[in-house]
């Protein structure tokens, strides 16, 4: 065995044990009708679970809910995050304090954030409904047509700092010369932003959107702590639906098939995105 191969061995062992085994094990489960409470009836069913999942309206509905959540949450986080990052880049005093203060929400565990907002937005105990009521506004944060957007706001509160962190690092790494040239040429700040900042920041923006989208697709804690998927199925995200199927209802075979289908979709999207980035890079 070569020196390079030997040096890679520990990593490969950890990779196989930590990622390979669960992946293979869950794939095998997805080919069976395994249920924790019916272990005696377990049999190989090939891709029947996959067929069942693909024909399940609830699965597609949960995917749509998750997609809506990702689009709105990531779009808001990107817009707000970019504005804050631009502001912080020009900040002269108390830089360290304001940056660490702004980043604090992302260090709170998501389940605690879910519980915190469950009480903050609670009609009986919450500070926000109480303040709104004082100015004559009654708003049901978890009512039909609204609950999913309340979840988006919670996610924006927690994860915009992550976007700020990435974009600020990106902004500070950009070469100063194009900005100086634009200034000399008399370009307005908005023109400079549109024609210089955004194109130069594009690779970082893409990576930031990709990371946040993947992370947002895992949304579970807010749903579990606040709405349990309601009203109706309006906040039933794919992770919560898979959790219910596999853990709450014991159908581990079906839940594994659900997870694998999601994995295939996510990996396909990521590959497509990277291919487009590469194509754009080569074209430029």
């Amino acid at each position, binding site marked *: 065995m070569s020196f390079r191969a030997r040096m890679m061995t520990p990593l490969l062992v950890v990779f196989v044990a930590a990622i390979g085994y669960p992946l293979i094990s869950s794939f095998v489960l997805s080919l069976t009708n395994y249920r924790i409470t019916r272990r005696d009836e377990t049999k190989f069913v090939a891709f029947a679970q996959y067929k069942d999942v693909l024909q399940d309206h609830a699965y597609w509905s949960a995917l749509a809910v998750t997609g809506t959540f990702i689009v709105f949450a990531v779009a808001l986080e990107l817009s707000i995050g970019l504005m804050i990052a631009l502001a912080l880049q020009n900040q002269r005093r108390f830089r360290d304090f304001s940056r660490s203060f702004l980043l604090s929400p992302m260090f709170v565990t998501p389940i605690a954030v879910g519980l915190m907002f469950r009480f903050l937005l609670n009609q*009986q105990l919450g500070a926000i*409904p109480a303040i709104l009521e004082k100015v004559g506004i009654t708003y*049901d944060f978890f009512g*039909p047509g609204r609950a999913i957007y309340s979840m988006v706001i919670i996610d924006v509160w927690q994860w915009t700092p992550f976007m700020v962190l990435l974009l600020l690092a990106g902004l500070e790494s950009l070469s100063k010369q194009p900005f100086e040239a634009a200034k000399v040429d008399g370009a307005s700040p908005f023109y400079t932003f549109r024609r210089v900042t955004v194109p130069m920041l594009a690779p970082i923006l893409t990576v930031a959107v990709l990371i946040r989208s993947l992370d947002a697709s895992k949304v579970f804690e807010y749903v579990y702590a606040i709405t349990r998927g309601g009203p109706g199925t309006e906040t039933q995200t794919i992770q919560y639906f898979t959790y219910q199927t596999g853990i709450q209802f014991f159908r581990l075979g079906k839940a594994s098939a659900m997870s694998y289908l999601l994995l295939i979709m996510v990996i396909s999207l990521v590959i497509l995105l990277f291919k487009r980035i590469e194509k754009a890079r080569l074209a430029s």
Partner: protein
Amino acid sequence: MRTMKARKSVMALIAVAGLVLISACSSSSPNASTAGNTKISADTAGTVRVLMEGVPDTDIVKGLLAKFNEKYPKIDVKIEPIAYDQIRDKIVASFQATDPTYDMAIIDNPWMGDFAKAGFLKPLDDLIAGTADYDYNDFSAPLRAIGEVDGKKYGVPFYNYGLGLIYRTDLLASAGITEPKTLDELAAAAKKLNTAARAGIAMQPQRGYKAFEEWGNYLFAAGGSIYGTDGLVKLNTPEAKKALNTYIAMYKSSAPKNSLNWAFDEALRSVSSDKSAMMVSYNWMLPTLNKKDGPAGALAGKFKLATMPGGKQVLGSWDWAIPANSKVSDAAWAFISWITSKEGEAARVSAGGAPARISVLTDPAVSNTGGGAEYYATVGKILGNAEPLCKGANCDEMINAVGTELNAAIAGLKSVDSALAAAEEQANKIQSK
């Protein structure tokens, strides 16, 4: 050859003698099933680990352990209180382990069918039948039925989750309303009691279990039932439609604003803080609300419990059970049979626990310490005419599916007809899997 034969004969004799000895020992075991007159030996020993929900009833059981140990000094019961959401996953893991983490279990009623059919629980028929003075039939019949699966007893009732109507006597009296006896009367009372400062009734339409649990009472009040005579779920019926239409109308006209996500805690808070006049809740909430230093403060003493209009209500329960892989089942049964005996039940209910036996309801020593004779008489009526939301397999999934459809109809996302049709279809599909 001869030596071999002789050796085989000796071996066979030893084996037969051994078997005779083992069977003799087991027949003299304290827990053997004889004609219901076997006393459990006070020398029964072992450490019994049990996972329980972190609720006041668990604290009451903990408080009785010293009394239990006066009778069984060699049994050490170790109770681990935990949040409800974590109980099921932990005990299911223990059920499947060669070396279990828990030797005794408490089982929520939707889990009973699945756990019994999976072989996770030990049948208790012989132990129940063999224990002296146990009087199993003294438990309320609907509660007993929850612990019985396919003709075998897997659980012994621990405490009940029977629902009832809790209302403010002063508010009903000042509005000139008598205790509602029909669903229409309940709706009319809620509407009349509804004011700008106080809702007529605090409801619990949260998606899943809560929506189904509360609405189930309305279904019974409308003359409907969850299962038909053929054993299939029947929710797409005129009675179910009347029940759901009434529920939605009450939610819109008489429930607190923006309470679509409310469950038990929110409804209790609303009633105890004078924000709602009535609620459908667990019968054992009445003594808590009427307690002088309880959550209702100055309103204590103004609450009364009634059966649901029509007389029938939804029932839940926790049952004691012994895992099939428990290595100290003798000690576990010694504890279960003591805590659920008439003596143990009286001590538990006197300390504030929810009753499961009928005889305890008329025990003067109990009614003097709890909610009073009138309260226990109503509890008796509740426990005598009640039914769980689900029977058989896949109950958690079935309840969640029905509760999701009901919540969608209450939220206005679906029509009553389509929600009930979908609920019936899904429930039957889930239970047939």
